């Protein structure tokens, strides 16, 4: 069942392994489906996005990151099913895709082939959240602390497979010094542009981090700088359009200048974390394993 070809690390899975992984991904898809349909009934975060689908697609409401809305609407029309069910299916597929990608990356980076290790590890990686219980009560995991997966947020869930794949290939790309390989650079650049249309926050943290990474590795010569600009140029254009749609357009319509960015000095985070020690405890409890 386990075959290695030509001295590379390639592993061709047997029928039993393929069936087990397929069953795991299908189970995640159906569990997610039930979860999101239940959230829709209870009127929580997911249903707010679903309610916006029709108005975004029909142009009554402008969304600066419309991929979830269009994907949901397209699936709803293609399968002739209600919009909430289509939205739940989109997110179920995103969760299953994320789990599959995690298994693949763990196989690549650890050399472990046993599914009895990889499947629980992928499940743990999908679910991990800030450690609150048994130490703290009344603390909010999403606003004020942190979770790998903010399950109620549709755009974060849809973004996750793109984040996992593009991050993995980006590090390979930098490590193997492929900055002059325009095909790979173009593919990554397109992935970052797509991610910005799903949710802009990934590129907003990734671009400065990659800049610092290049600086630390002394890669910021003219070639490195050109590669960095090419990687994030399409995403940067989309960010500018999103800024126009979200802030400038409204300011122009209202005829007054509005402040679009404020400074906070950790006050909001500290207040919302609701744990003794505030931001420090919030970070330690959220990143306990990585630390």
């Amino acid at each position: 069942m386990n075959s290695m070809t030509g001295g590379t690390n390639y592993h061709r899975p047997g029928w039993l392994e393929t069936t087990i992984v397929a069953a795991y991904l299908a189970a995640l898809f159906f569990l997610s489906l039930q979860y999101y349909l239940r959230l829709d009934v209870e009127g929580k975060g997911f249903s707010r996005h679903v309610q916006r689908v029709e108005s975004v697609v029909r142009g009554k409401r402008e969304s600066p990151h419309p991929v979830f809305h269009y994907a949901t609407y397209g699936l709803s029309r293609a399968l002739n099913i209600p919009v909430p069910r289509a939205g739940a299916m989109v997110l179920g597929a995103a969760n299953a895709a994320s789990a599959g990608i995690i298994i693949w990356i763990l196989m690549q980076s650890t050399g472990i082939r046993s599914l009895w290790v990889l499947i629980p590890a992928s499940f743990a990686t999908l679910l991990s959240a800030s450690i609150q219980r048994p130490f703290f009560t009344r603390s909010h995991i999403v606003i004020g602390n942190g979770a790998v997966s903010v399950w109620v947020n549709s755009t974060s869930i849809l973004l996750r497979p793109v984040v996992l794949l593009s991050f993995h290939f980006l590090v390979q790309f930098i490590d193997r010094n492929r900055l002059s390989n325009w095909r790979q650079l173009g593919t990554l650049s397109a992935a970052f542009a797509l991610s910005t249309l799903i949710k802009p926050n990934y590129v907003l943290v990734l671009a400065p981090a990659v800049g610092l990474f290049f600086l630390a590795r002394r890669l910021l010569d003219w070639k490195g700088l050109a590669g960095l600009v090419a990687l994030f140029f399409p995403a940067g254009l989309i960010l500018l359009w999103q800024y126009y749609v979200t802030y400038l357009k409204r300011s122009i319509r209202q005829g007054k200048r509005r402040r679009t960015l404020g400074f906070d000095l950790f006050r909001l985070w500290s207040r919302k974390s609701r744990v003794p020690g505030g931001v420090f405890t919030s970070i330690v409890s959220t990143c306990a394993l990585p630390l």
Partner: protein
Amino acid sequence: MLIARFRSFTSDSYLQLAWLMTIVGALERGLLLEPDHRGSGNWSWGYHIALNPLFLYSVAELLRWSKAASWNDRRQMGLLIGAYALLGLHVWNGLLYVKEYTFG
């Protein structure tokens, strides 16, 4: 992982970039806000997103460490058990979070 496996961290580009992203995300979350939606916490999403690669490559490092660990080294076994206990706590809290959002 960062403290117990610092030597591996120095040669692991995935973990290095994941940590940089998390630090940038934490700074954006802590320092920036939208004046019109002060309580929305919209600048916190980058931090949440950065946790995805951070946890994935930390779990990968944990698995590599488990594979290479010697059962005779008690200190190493203690650290490994501690790391798995932390992962267990993260997952337990993740399950509680899903349960609370689903069932109230």
